[in-house]
């Protein structure tokens, strides 16, 4: 890899800009996503910025079990995010449709429609787990752009919602914020 590509890879890992989209969520995961930007969790330490326009974003964060109404909007917005891009599915709903399984109003799970890079399970997942998922997605995005790899989904190794806050989710990942207050 030449120095410019190395620098680009480094910068892509450190500057994930998010676009948040609701695919029929109960709003629980959306609240947790916003909570990860608040003073207690402070995702801006990783360079995370919540952007207003999908054109500015690198990582598309999708919550909810993907209703029939939401499918076309999600596909459109996925197309509007400029490459290199990654998708993070936040919560159990976009991964499995969760308790709404077999509902006739649903078109989920999410990976039937767009390629998903990181699933962050939990109902809702803890903000630390979301931050870890976003950091992983930024790493995947940078690596994929550098090596021009095909898109393939990754499941996060630990579940965020069941840890109850005492398993030190942040300590297990190197790139989580340095001072997450308890």
């Amino acid at each position, binding site marked *: 890899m030449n120095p410019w590509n190395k620098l*680009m890879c480094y910068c892509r890992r*450190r*500057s994930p800009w998010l676009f948040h989209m609701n695919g029929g969520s109960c709003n629980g995961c959306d609240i947790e996503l916003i909570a990860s930007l608040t003073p207690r969790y402070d995702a801006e330490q990783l360079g995370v910025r919540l952007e*207003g*326009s999908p054109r500015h974003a690198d990582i598309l964060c999708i919550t909810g079990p993907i209703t029939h109404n939401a499918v076309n909007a999600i596909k459109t917005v996925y197309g509007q995010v*400029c490459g*290199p891009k990654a998708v993070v599915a936040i919560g159990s709903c976009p991964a499995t449709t969760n308790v709404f399984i077999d509902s006739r109003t649903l078109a989920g799970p999410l990976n039937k429609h767009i390629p998903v890079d990181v699933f962050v399970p939990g109902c809702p997942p803890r903000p630390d787990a979301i931050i870890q998922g976003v950091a992983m997605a930024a790493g995947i995005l940078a690596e994929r752009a550098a090596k021009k790899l095909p898109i393939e989904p990754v499941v996060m190794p630990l579940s965020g919602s069941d840890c109850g806050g005492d398993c030190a989710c942040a300590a297990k990942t190197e790139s989580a914020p340095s001072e997450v207050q308890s």
Partner: protein
Amino acid sequence: MNLITALARLLIFPGVLFAVPAAWFFLWVERKSVALMQGRIGPPFMQPFYDFIKLLGKDTPPRSGIGGLLMKAWPLIAVSAAAGAVGLLPVLPSSGGFQGDLILLLALLELPSMCIIAAGFSSRSIFGEIGSAREAVLSVSYNIVFLLAIVSIAASQRTFSLEALARLPFSPLQILGIVAILVCLPAKLHLNPFSLPNAEQEIYSGPMVEYAGPELAMWELSHGLEWVAATGLVATLVAPHLTIWWLAALVFVALSFGVVLLLSVLAAATARLAIDTTVRFYWQCTLIFAVLAISSALFMRFRS
């Protein structure tokens, strides 16, 4: 001002070579101080640089025709205008200048905002158009005060040369003018009480909504350069006249940093106002500063 000093000022100090890192630094100071005031740790020191490089490496949506060409042109015009404005600042003593460079500086400071308006309309997005309309209304409101304040300082000294204005001793009139300029800076830099044109929660970042990749990087850079130029203008007006060049440069940087901190604290402490409140604020409350400044300038001219 001969060609070599002009090029040195444009390209080295206080031009591109100084201004681009300074722009990133000021963008970081803004984000960091907002974070500290909210009880967060905030972004790392190199964050604006990382963002810039990352944006350079992103794709842009394909655009065809004259509209696409214009959308590529606006951020470049904005960046070069802002860099030119920084290059005109009389930071170093006896760095040369010309009669009327104040007018050129004001025109160059105005160009990025014109480009933002044009960019919003040429993106043909409804959010971009709303943002551009807001930017236009805002620019009409604050520019009356901003221009009257600067013209009153210039008129009292009978000169439009920046170097002569920077050498002025302190006077009550100058302080009045500087306060009026400071009141206008948050609107000029789209900072929080007046961040209407790029309101993220309401209109999806306004005129920038369709921009991506390197073009967005240019907008970020032009925003940073506008920071350097606008705070630098205040710094040169406030700074005492020094003959040692490195001391002058140091005082300039320190004063600019102070203005940046002041504006960031204001941005962190306030919420966004509605457009009608903003317009009323500038037309009803701050116009009095400007009218006071220009009338006292004219009075001083007639008496002398």
